[in-house]
């Protein structure tokens, strides 16, 4: 017996056996937590995947293909106007990096080859926080106010953090970049307004398909709610026309792809989701085999779906087991949560901020976890603090950043993020 090699399978078997032997099933709290986790997954699948995530993946894919990185990187290069660089760096996270692994090379590039430490750290902080998928899901599940606060807080404070980093390390010499930055080639340019309208129709579909039912039974909001599918359909028709006119999709193919959806919209009008799914399938069939930009659009969107759905499923299960559905409990008693991060004290905000900075949140998983925490008594202020510090940083992430800008700068950066997140949370908690 080669014990040197065989100890591993033995250890695995023993561990699994002991876990099964001592499985806490039968204890109320555990059974309840399991049930909560499964209920939560079902709720997500029913309420958010089809109408919210699927369009969001298409939008993210479109951004990856149709937004010209080169035109943005011009503002972040070595010769760029430094003042503008901060603004661009803080906002560009929405369009430059939907994948979290793209942030680090961009950060390294902007720091070493481009506009320098200030704009680079502004981008490093804002990028993950305002990734388009995260904003959409945050607004949808946690509410538009906190979604907006997250985006605004990330952008605003990233500029401040960038500036502070710049001034704190002003005296340090940075090696002049000897190599010219390699710009990605300019692709076929469609007039900006055409691209903008294209995005606008998709965002329109996303917003109106997900329009929530308001409290009052009268008024504009309610009127919109009653007609949301009609409005969403109008946007869908607009999108089809745009795809036919400006994106080179053959007219008869588009009409053919749209027909099942239109038929179902009238046949099963009280279940608009069915027509919606048919439309998504139609669009996918239409573009997935193509070799041009629309084909690339599909491949990018599909790439995001493959990457993110398993992570989100995992995040929802973890949130469900630990925290339960909103209003319920999981393994963690709510008193622990309210004691640690309830209310809006500076300490609560700091605790949330600190934990968030070191904890690793896979893309989008911060949303179900935060939903669970808020449902268990976390204050709105600390919630925002966690949203601002969590996705942007984690311990593994800090170690990589350290290899790019060194230990001292990394420590200062992390400290600044935690402080800014704490302050933002505190201010938000005061007004909401």
């Amino acid at each position, binding site marked *: 017996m080669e014990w040197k090699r065989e100890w591993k399978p033995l250890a695995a078997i023993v561990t699994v056996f002991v876990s099964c032997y001592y499985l806490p099933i039968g204890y109320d709290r555990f059974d309840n937590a399991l049930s909560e986790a499964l209920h939560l997954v079902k709720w997500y699948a029913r309420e958010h995947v089809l109408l919210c995530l699927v369009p969001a993946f298409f939008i993210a894919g479109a951004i990856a293909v149709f937004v010209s990185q080169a035109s943005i990187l011009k503002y972040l290069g070595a010769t760029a106007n430094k003042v503008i660089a901060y603004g661009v760096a803080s906002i560009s996270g929405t369009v430059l990096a939907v994948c979290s692994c793209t942030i680090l090379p961009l*950060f390294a590039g902007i720091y070493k080859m481009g506009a320098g430490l200030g704009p680079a750290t502004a981008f490093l902080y804002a990028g993950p926080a305002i990734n388009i998928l995260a904003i959409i899901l945050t607004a949808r599940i946690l509410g538009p106010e906190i979604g907006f606060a997250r985006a605004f807080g990330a952008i605003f404070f990233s500029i401040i953090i960038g500036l502070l980093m710049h001034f704190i390390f002003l005296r340090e010499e940075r090696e002049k970049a000897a190599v010219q930055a390699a710009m990605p080639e300019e692709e076929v340019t469609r007039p900006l307004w055409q691209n903008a309208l294209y995005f606008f129709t998709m965002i329109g579909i996303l917003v109106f398909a997900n329009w929530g039912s308001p409290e009052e039974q009268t008024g504009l909001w309610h009127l919109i709610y009653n007609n949301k599918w009609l409005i969403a359909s109008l946007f869908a028709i607009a999108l089809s026309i745009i795809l036919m006119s400006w994106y080179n999709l053959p007219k008869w193919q588009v009409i053919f792809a749209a027909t099942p959806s239109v038929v179902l919209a009238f046949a099963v009008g009280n279940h608009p989701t069915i027509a919606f799914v048919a439309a998504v399938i139609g669009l996918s069939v239409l573009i997935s085999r193509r070799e041009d930009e629309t084909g690339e659009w599909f491949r990018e969107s599909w790439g995001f779906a493959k990457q993110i759905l398993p992570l989100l499923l995992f995040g929802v299960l973890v949130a469900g087991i630990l925290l339960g559905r909103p209003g319920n409990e999981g393994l963690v008693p709510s008193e622990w949560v309210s004691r640690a991060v309830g209310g809006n004290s500076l300490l609560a905000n700091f605790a949330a901020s600190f934990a968030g900075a070191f904890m690793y949140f896979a893309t989008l998983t911060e949303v179900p976890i935060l939903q669970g925490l808020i449902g268990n008594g976390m204050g709105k202020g600390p919630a925002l603090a966690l949203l601002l510090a969590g996705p942007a940083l984690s311990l593994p992430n800090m170690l990589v950043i350290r290899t790019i800008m060194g230990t001292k700068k990394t420590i200062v950066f992390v400290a600044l993020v935690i402080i800014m997140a704490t302050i933002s949370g505190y201010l938000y908690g005061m007004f909401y």
Partner: protein
Amino acid sequence: MDIKICGPGCTKCHEAERLVKEAVEEAKVKATIEKVTDFNAIAGYGVFSTPAVIIDGQVKCVGKVPSKKDILEWIR
């Protein structure tokens, strides 16, 4: 021919590496293929965005996975 593929190790970078290897085999060209994962080195080549493909010192593709057709064109 010296081919460098820049990327920290995410799926897109692996995809780019795989396509480059297949293209090199198909074209029967002699080439050394190297994966660069260190961010400082990547930034040193002037690359801001991964995956990126550099052939004989020239940056051919930045920020997306190149198609095999494109790679074959570059190495022939």
